[in-house]
C-alpha cells in the first residue's frame, strides 16, 4: 500500500511535448476506438492517392 504511494509521487503531470493535456479526463467529444482512428488515416491516404491516379 505504502509502496504504491511512493510510486505515485514520482508521477509527472499529464503532458506531452510542451502541451498541457488532460487525456485521462473523459470529455463529451465523439469517441472513436484507435482502430477507427487508424482506419481514418489510411482512408485519407488512399483517397488522396486515388485522386492522383484517377486524374
Amino acid at each position, binding site marked *: 500500500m*505504502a*509502496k504504491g*504511494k*511512493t510510486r*505515485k*509521487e*514520482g508521477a*509527472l*503531470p499529464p*503532458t*506531452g*511535448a*510542451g*502541451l*498541457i*493535456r*488532460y*487525456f*485521462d*479526463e*473523459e*470529455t*463529451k*467529444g*465523439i*469517441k*472513436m*476506438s*484507435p482502430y477507427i*482512428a*487508424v482506419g*481514418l*488515416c*489510411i482512408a*485519407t*491516404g488512399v483517397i*488522396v*492517392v486515388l*485522386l*492522383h491516379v484517377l*486524374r
Partner: protein
Amino acid sequence: MSKLEIFSPLYRFLPEVSVPKRHIPFKEKITWSAVILSIYFALSQIPLYGVSEKVMDWLSGFRVVLAGNSGTILTLGIGPIVTAGIIMQLLVGSDILDLDLTTHKGKEIFQGTQKLLAIFLCFFEAFAMAKGENMAQGAMLLIVTIQMAIGGILVMIMDEVVTKWGFGSGISLFIAGRVSAQVLWKAFSFLPSETSPDQLIGAVPAFIKSFINGNPEWTRPGLLPGMDQVFFTVVVFLIIVYIESIRVEIPLSYGKFKGIRGRYPIKFIYASNIPMILTVAMFSNIKLMAHILNTRGITWLGTFDSRGNAVSGIVDYIQPPYSLYALSQEPFKALVYLIMVVLLCIFFAVLWIELTQMGPEAVAKKTGEIGNADPWIQKGSKSSEESSFQIHTTGYGDGWSSCRIDSCCGKLYRCSGNRHRNLINCGHPV
C-alpha cells in the same frame, strides 16, 4: 466560471480517441506506436492532390521540430497542435483566462478549447499556405486547403492514439521519427544531390569519395551535410544522453510508516525538450506571418528567396545557421539567434513548470499531501534540525541546428522542510 464556457456546446463535435479501459500490455503498446509511426511516414510521402509544381516550404528550417513534410498531406506537421498549446498556456499562465486547472471542469474546458483552437489553426494555416503560395486557384484552392487541414487533424488524432494506447507522446514520436530518418539519410545516402548533381547527399559517402580522389573535404558549402555536421551530431547526441541521465534523487521518508523510504527524482533537464519545441513553434509562426504579409506586399517582418529562406528583416535572425561554414560567414546573426533562443527557452520553461504544477512549491505541497508523507532529508546529509533540500533545476541555452541541445530554465530553489510538520514550507529562489 470562465469565459471559455461559451465554447462548451462545441466540445461534443470534437473527435476523440477513447481511453483504454484496461491495462495495455507492453507488446500492444509497441504495436500501436509502430503502426502510427508507419502511417505517419506513409502520409508524409503522399503529395497534395491539385498541386503540380514543387512549392516553397514556408516552414523550412523549423521542420526538425515541427515534423511534417512540405507539399504533402502532412505539410502542417505538429505546428497547429503546438501553436494552440502555446496560446492556451500563455492565456492561462498570464491569468487572462481564469481557469482552475485542478478541477475536472477546468481541465475539460482547457482540453476542449485547446483542441478547438488547434482545429481552427489547421484550417487557417492550410488556407494561408495554399493561398499565399498560389498552390491552386478557384475550387482547387479549397480542395488543397481541406487536404492540408485534414492532415493536421489526422496528426492530432494519431498523437492521441500514441498517447493513450502507445508509448509516450505522439508528438515526440513524430519529431524523433523524422529526425532519425534525416540523420540516416543525410549521413549515408548514396544518391546525388538535386541541386548539385555531381555531389552525393550523404556526408559519409561524399567524404569517402573526396578522400579517394585525394582531396578530403571535411565541410561542404551550401546546405549539403559535411563531416563536421556528422561529428557535431554524434557529440551532441552523447552529451544529451549523458545530461538526460543526470538527476538529483531526494530521499523521502514517511511519517506514517516508519522505515519506508521513497525517492523523488529531479532531472537536471527538468523541462526536457519542451521549451525548445515551444520556441521553435513560435519562430515558425513569426515566419508564417511574414510569408502571409509578404504576399500582400508588406515586408517589414522580412523577405524571402525563392526557396523559402529568409534573406532580410527579423525572420532572417530567427533562422539557425546550418553549418560551420554558415556560422563563419555570419557570426553576429548566429549570436543573436543563440541569445534569443536561450531567453525564450528560459521564459517557456519557467511558464511551463509553473503551469504544470511542477514548480518547487507545488511539488513540495504534493509531496506533503500524498499519503500524509513527511518528507525530510536523511540525517547527516544536511543539517539535522532544519533539514532542507533543493529542487535544482538548472539550465542552459542551446545553439544552432547542428548542435541543438534542448534547453531548460535555470532556477535554483531551496526548499526547507521541517520533519515535524506534514507540509513543508518553500522558500524563494536562492
